[in-house]
């Protein structure tokens, strides 16, 4: 927990509160809040049946289903492999550990368009992985699997980096106590370590899931963008915008639904992080 200096003295002698807060609120309003409000107002200015049709027609529903499903699958994969990576990085010492630790951030630093480009080529028919996978029926390019693969790649750092600090601060005394009381290593892991890690794993899952729902850059390259099949919701927004010419209404319905998803996730994650920080020691 951070030290709470701020309440100790009554009058805060530090200058600049008014101007920095004012600038913060102004900048935030111009760049973020007003644009969000404009999108919402534009959506609400449409007639209700029209908005409903734009947001829930069959093509849009298929896109939401794929976006939610693929993000969920990718977040699940990340929870599994991310936990494995975090555990191995924190608990073991082995040659190449630092390289592995650095590699974890790679998807975060790499522009998503480049990630999509290289993953699409790896899993294509004559790509380094595709030439082995395609003959046995695993089609990573232009498929739903491709969407999951790309989302897993982009979301991986979130689950590792959420879990890592918690693992580092874990009190080993508890594990020893469990061992002294006669529990085997597996039992200790399942009933002592795992429950402590669960909130952080869930937070990482949520962050990866949220990232997946909004992702566009990497998917464009790998998924093939087939309506009803491999078209995710953000792609549909772009398609509607491009086919509409100067008529933006087609894109608004899907965008509004995506915005509602984002808000719901943001508040859920805030709550989750508050919950998981209770488990962290100072």
């Amino acid at each position, binding site marked *: 927990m951070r030290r709470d*200096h701020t309440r100790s003295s009554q009058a805060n002698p530090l200058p600049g509160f008014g101007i*920095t807060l004012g600038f913060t609120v102004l900048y935030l309003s111009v*760049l973020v809040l007003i644009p969000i409000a404009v999108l919402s107002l534009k959506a609400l200015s449409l007639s209700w049946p029209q908005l409903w049709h734009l947001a829930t027609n069959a093509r849009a529903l298929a896109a939401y289903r794929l976006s939610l499903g693929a993000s969920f699958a990718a977040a699940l994969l990340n929870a599994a492999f991310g936990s494995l990576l975090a555990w191995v990085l924190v608990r*073991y010492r082995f040659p190449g550990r630092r390289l*592995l630790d650095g590699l974890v951030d790679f998807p975060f630093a790499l522009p998503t368009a480049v990630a999509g480009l290289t993953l699409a080529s790896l899993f294509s028919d004559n790509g380094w*992985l595709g030439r082995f996978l395609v003959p046995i029926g695993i089609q990573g390019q232009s498929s739903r699997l491709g969407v999951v693969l790309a989302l897993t790649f982009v979301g991986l750092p979130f689950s590792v980096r959420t879990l890592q600090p918690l693992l580092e601060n874990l009190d080993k005394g508890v594990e020893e106590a469990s*061992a002294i009381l006669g529990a085997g290593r597996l039992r*200790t892991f399942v009933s002592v370590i795992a429950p402590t890690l669960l909130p952080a794993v869930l937070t990482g899952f949520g962050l990866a899931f949220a990232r997946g729902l909004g992702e566009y850059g990497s998917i464009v390259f790998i998924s093939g963008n087939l309506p009803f099949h491999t078209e995710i919701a953000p792609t549909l927004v772009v398609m509607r915008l491009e086919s509409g010419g100067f008529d933006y209404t087609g894109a608004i319905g899907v*965008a509004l639904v995506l915005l509602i998803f984002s808000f719901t996730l943001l508040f859920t*994650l805030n709550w989750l992080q508050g919950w998981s920080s209770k488990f962290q020691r100072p």
Partner: protein
Amino acid sequence: MNLPHPPTAPERPAQSSTQEHPVVKWLLIGLAGLFAALFLLLPLINIFAQAFSSGLAGYWNTLKDQNTVAAIRLTLLVAVISVPLNVVFGVAAAWAIAKFEFRGKAVLLTFIDLPFSVSPVVAGLMFVLLFGANGLLGHWLEAHGMTIIFAVPGIVLATMFVTFPFVARELIPIMQDQGREQEEAALTLGASGWQTFWHVSLPSVKWGLFYGVILCNARAMGEYGAVSVVSSKIAGKTGTLPLCVQKLYDDFSHPAAPFALATLLALLALLTLGIKTYLEWKSRREQEPL
């Protein structure tokens, strides 16, 4: 570890109970390593292998193409405008949030996080709705001879939106941890507000600030979704590097060309990671004597 054990308990719990069996340990390390090699390292190597698949000359021809040069210049221009503005915002926001108590702080923090969870495509659409030809301000802008959408200002705005939280998010926890005792001491000793900020507050957060800046910059130069919505993809005109990668990919005629551009962005990513590692090492070394 130094807890007193009851006398009847063994001196130290058996090794097997506080550590995994070596076989399990090396199995886990192997699995993690294999996953990272296939899923993280291979995509990186693949970028360079594909880029040079048509030879060094082909690679060089793509890079010195005038569309590429224009894209590099535009990408740098966008970063040079958007990153400093977000730095000013980040420092101001961190100062207000970390050093003062006020109502609505939690709400403000949530709002600052918003761009992280809004899809970049939706962000781009928001600016089209505001400034596009049929947008809210479209007619006014047209009457005054200004274009934002399908032009550089639109790209800058969209980039600023998606990179908005990076610096603030990095600085706020560091500044909160430091409290304000040092600033109060400086003010008591007669320093002015600006002097206190420049000589006391800023130096103590410099590594965090630098880290926020390089993350913000990496995202600004690599953003694709938001930028693709607000730009018209006309070659050499309003295409940043990631947009050019897409254009060359759709073109099919030179399969190595998009990868040649991608190597530049991959090098930027590697550079960012290198600086990050260095900064972490540096700030840990400075904290140690304390």
